[in-house]
């Protein structure tokens, strides 16, 4: 296995140009999903889904400087390529798999559209494309990686808000960036998804945020449910035993 790669998205550098969204669509032939006006600041894409693999969120907040009155938080969201990926764990066909780059990818020739991965993802990333019937999400440009290239979004990002590279290198760089920002008085800067001890054992795509995760539409404490699978099976075993005993008991006694 080659070293594990990922994304570090430094949202302090994002200018909201959506070059990542466009580059992703173009390279991956992701279908058009409507020309919408959502009335949510500059966000007219809405959310990550089967036909949006990079999504730039725009959050308007009151600015300190009264001259403008408003400031934007902008963040380009993407599949987290979780170390413990619930989508992959629950996929019954083996369509979702972990690549030699440590990323999580759907094999479209295998997926039968059972839909189980959709409620399993703690970030609401993976989704079904209709009428295609299968699920789709970011592949971290698996084909480009195989060719030794940078993923399209990171390549297109003009500010290096989206940084691509070996995950351990990115984590080191991110930690430095946070202390640099703290030094400049940006105390609200924080990393999201960088901790290998979190509920998904560390995201392969992690972020530097300027507010709480939920402000960006991210879950504050995502957990891969498969962590608890063995205890769930034990509970089911007890319930199954009660079921068997209950039905056996119905046959005890009177012959009527």
């Amino acid at each position: 296995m080659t070293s594990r790669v990922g994304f570090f998205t430094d949202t302090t550098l994002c200018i909201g140009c959506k070059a990542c969204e466009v580059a992703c669509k173009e390279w991956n032939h992701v279908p058009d999903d409507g020309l919408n006006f959502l009335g949510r600041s500059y966000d007219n894409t809405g959310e990550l889904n089967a036909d949006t693999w990079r999504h730039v969120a725009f959050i308007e907040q009151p600015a300190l400087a009264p001259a403008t009155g408003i400031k934007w938080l902008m963040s380009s969201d993407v599949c987290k390529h979780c170390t413990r990926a619930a989508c992959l764990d629950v996929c019954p066909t083996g369509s979702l798999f972990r690549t030699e780059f440590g990323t999580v990818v759907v094999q479209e020739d295998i997926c039968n559209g059972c839909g189980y991965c959709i409620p399993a993802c703690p970030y609401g990333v993976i989704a079904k494309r209709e009428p295609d019937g299968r699920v789709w999400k970011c592949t971290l440009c698996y084909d480009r990686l195989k060719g030794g290239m940078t993923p399209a979004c990171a390549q297109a990002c003009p500010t290096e808000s989206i940084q691509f590279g070996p995950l351990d290198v990115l984590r080191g760089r991110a930690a430095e960036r946070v202390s640099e920002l703290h030094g400049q008085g940006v105390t609200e800067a924080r990393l999201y998804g960088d901790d290998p001890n979190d509920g998904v054992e560390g995201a392969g795509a992690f972020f530097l945020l300027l507010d709480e995760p939920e402000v960006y539409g991210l879950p504050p404490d995502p957990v891969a449910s498969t962590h608890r699978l063995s205890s769930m099976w034990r509970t089911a075993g007890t319930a199954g035993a009660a079921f068997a005993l209950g039905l056996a008991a119905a046959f005890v006694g009177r012959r009527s």
Partner: protein
Amino acid sequence: MKGERRMVPKATPTSYYGQPILKEHVWKGWIPAYFFAGGLAAGLSTIAFHSDRRGRKRLARRSWVASTAALGAGTSFLIADLGRPSRFHHMLRVAKPTSPMSVGTWVLSTFGPATGLAALASVTGWLPRVGRAAGLAAAALAPAMATYTSVLLTDTAVPAWSEARGELPFVFAASAMAAAGAVAIIVTPAAEAGPARRAAVIGSLAEAAGVRVMKESLGQLAEPYHEGHAGDLSSTAETLTLGGAAVVALLGRRRIPAVMGGLLIAAGSLAERFAVVAAGSASARDPSYTVGPQKARLAARAATAF
């Protein structure tokens, strides 16, 4: 709950334009219908197995046949729900212990043929030893068949399902028992349906109690089970189940009330499966059910870190 005012205003944690964080499942009604059919078959095969051993020939035969029919219907529901039905056999290319759906696929594909074989032997009288072995296998797999679907739901990020992981398996097991007793009552003359009546009544009471305990322990996350479409389904389910149980307990020795009571209980079990699935959707749709409990978890962890 409908029409009542909420006593405590719902905390609305920050969100991104109120948009859901999670994706709702995209299963159609086939999936809760399958949960019902699969549970029903698990219970019927168990009833048939015990009936065989106790010489209740008619109850055994009819329960085996009804179980086979429920499995046939359930399997077709599963296939109908796939985005690519022609690829249903892709489920069989791997056996993944980390996937409750994969585990369930293999349980179904052993339990199903075992039940079918037992039914065939029971109806035709051919190969009695094979029939007995198949019946034993079906009865041994039945508890897994009745409960794996609950793990399939709790092993997700959906708050109203995953936080019910301590109770949902019992609800599904009881629902399966109730439905199986009910259908066995319907297909068997009252004089021979004694054990089926007891199964139906005990199962119904356990199902209603299990749902109550589950809602109790969910705290605020019980709201999706009380409100809206899921709430309507859930209260309808309880009324049907308990009403049916009362009819069967009091009048179940007479053919017509027995059939009616059985139908009510079966409908209650079916409605309960739809209620649980709908509550999951509602809890995924509202970001506060994702954010609130997770923030509370983080705060609790921070408090113990000192």
